[in-house]
């Protein structure tokens, strides 16, 4: 139900006339759900600002929340969701905070002697308006959380692909977690760049932290090995646990002449032996 402009101004008058009562009762309601995680003064400030926002939107004659006339209120609600989401409140608590305005308003309507049919109709229209506001808060909350998650996923991608120097001429890539195409690409780029930067002839790819090696993971690793070989570096794959070995055999993946070892220590020993032999030959 859309708010008519007369209803809007009547409601705005009601707000205006009982500002303090509304703020107090609304703050009280929210304080009950937040259980002391926000200070009373902070809540009071938020509700009084929001209350003003509602008043302005109603006074302006916004028929619903998505109207241009309610743009400022929407911005306020988005701001509120954003702070709540970052402070770790649940979506429910955030939306209930807005719904609480209805209770505060209902008290007022009931208190007034003029609780006639007109006032009730106003209240119902207003109630629908608050519902939209709460749903909007909910939407915004979810969007902000999704943004947070996307940001974190990006940060993880950065974090989880280090290339470390293990020995003179030996670099290692400890892979941890799921190796999808995006990560495989990052790993390959980092490894190849590190090979150039350090002039290392050996690279060890350790898959101890990869929970499942399927054909896609194997293919990514094989491509990385081939690319490193093209640059003249030899790759050793380590961290092949018994269950992974059996799965690879059953899948039918062949690593060809690529050296594979059970542990990173074995791989390092293997490389050191190779380089040791060369030194003796000289």
């Amino acid at each position, binding site marked *: 139900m859309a708010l008519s402009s007369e209803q809007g101004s009547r409601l705005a008058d009601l707000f205006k006339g009982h500002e303090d009562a509304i703020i107090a009762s609304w703050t009280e309601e929210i304080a009950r759900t937040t259980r002391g995680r926000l200070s009373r003064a902070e809540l009071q400030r938020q509700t009084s600002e929001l209350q003003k926002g509602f008043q302005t939107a109603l006074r302006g004659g916004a028929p619903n929340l998505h109207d241009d006339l309610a743009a400022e209120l929407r911005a306020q609600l988005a701001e509120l969701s954003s702070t709540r989401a970052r402070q770790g409140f649940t979506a429910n608590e955030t939306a209930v905070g807005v719904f609480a305005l209805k209770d505060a308003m209902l008290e007022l309507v009931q208190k007034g002697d003029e609780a006639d049919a007109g006032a009730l109709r106003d209240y119902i229209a207003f109630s629908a308006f608050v519902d939209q506001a709460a749903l909007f808060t909910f939407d915004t909350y979810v969007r902000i959380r999704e943004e947070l998650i996307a940001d974190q996923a990006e940060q993880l991608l950065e974090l989880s692909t280090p290339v470390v120097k293990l020995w003179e001429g030996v670099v290692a890539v400890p892979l941890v977690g799921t190796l999808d195409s995006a990560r495989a690409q990052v790993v390959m780029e980092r490894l190849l760049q590190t090979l150039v930067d350090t002039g290392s002839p050996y690279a060890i790819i350790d898959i101890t932290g990869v929970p499942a090696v*399927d054909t896609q993971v*194997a293919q990514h690793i094989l491509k990385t090995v081939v690319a490193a070989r093209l640059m003249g570096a030899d790759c050793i794959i380590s961290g092949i646990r*018994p*269950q992974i070995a059996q799965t690879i055999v059953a*899948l039918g993946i062949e690593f060809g002449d690529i050296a594979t070892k059970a542990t990173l220590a074995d791989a390092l020993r293997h490389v050191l032996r190779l380089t040791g032999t060369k030194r003796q030959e000289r």
Partner: protein
Amino acid sequence: MTTWDGAAAAERVAIISDQDVVRVRQLVRTLAVAVKLSLVDQTKIVTAASELARNTLVYGGGGNAEVSRVDNGRKPGIRIVFADEGPGIPDLDLALTDGYTTGGGMGLGLSGARRLVDEFEIDTEVGKGTTISVTKWCR
């Protein structure tokens, strides 16, 4: 957190992105641990699920996976049913040949997955889609 109480417990996951392949894998791993598959069998069923989920996504154009706990009276197990409404597989024997691929993969996903599980059923019709059911029993 998913709880797996009762033999009929089943969970359906829509497969529409790479993330969903990871979700299927995690779901299968959780259940594999719950039905007490050995570590090797856990890894095998998880890997098979990973292959088939990716096939559903890449070749079937997306679909869903239903992961359920089954019991044949003597031992528990896991059944996963992958269903898509994609183009179907015209030549099943060829598709099950090691090294054959129409995409850029290794051509081992379908045939390899079959070797990783105890029961493997495939039902496909060109133009209608493909349903693959795999089961792994506790030993």
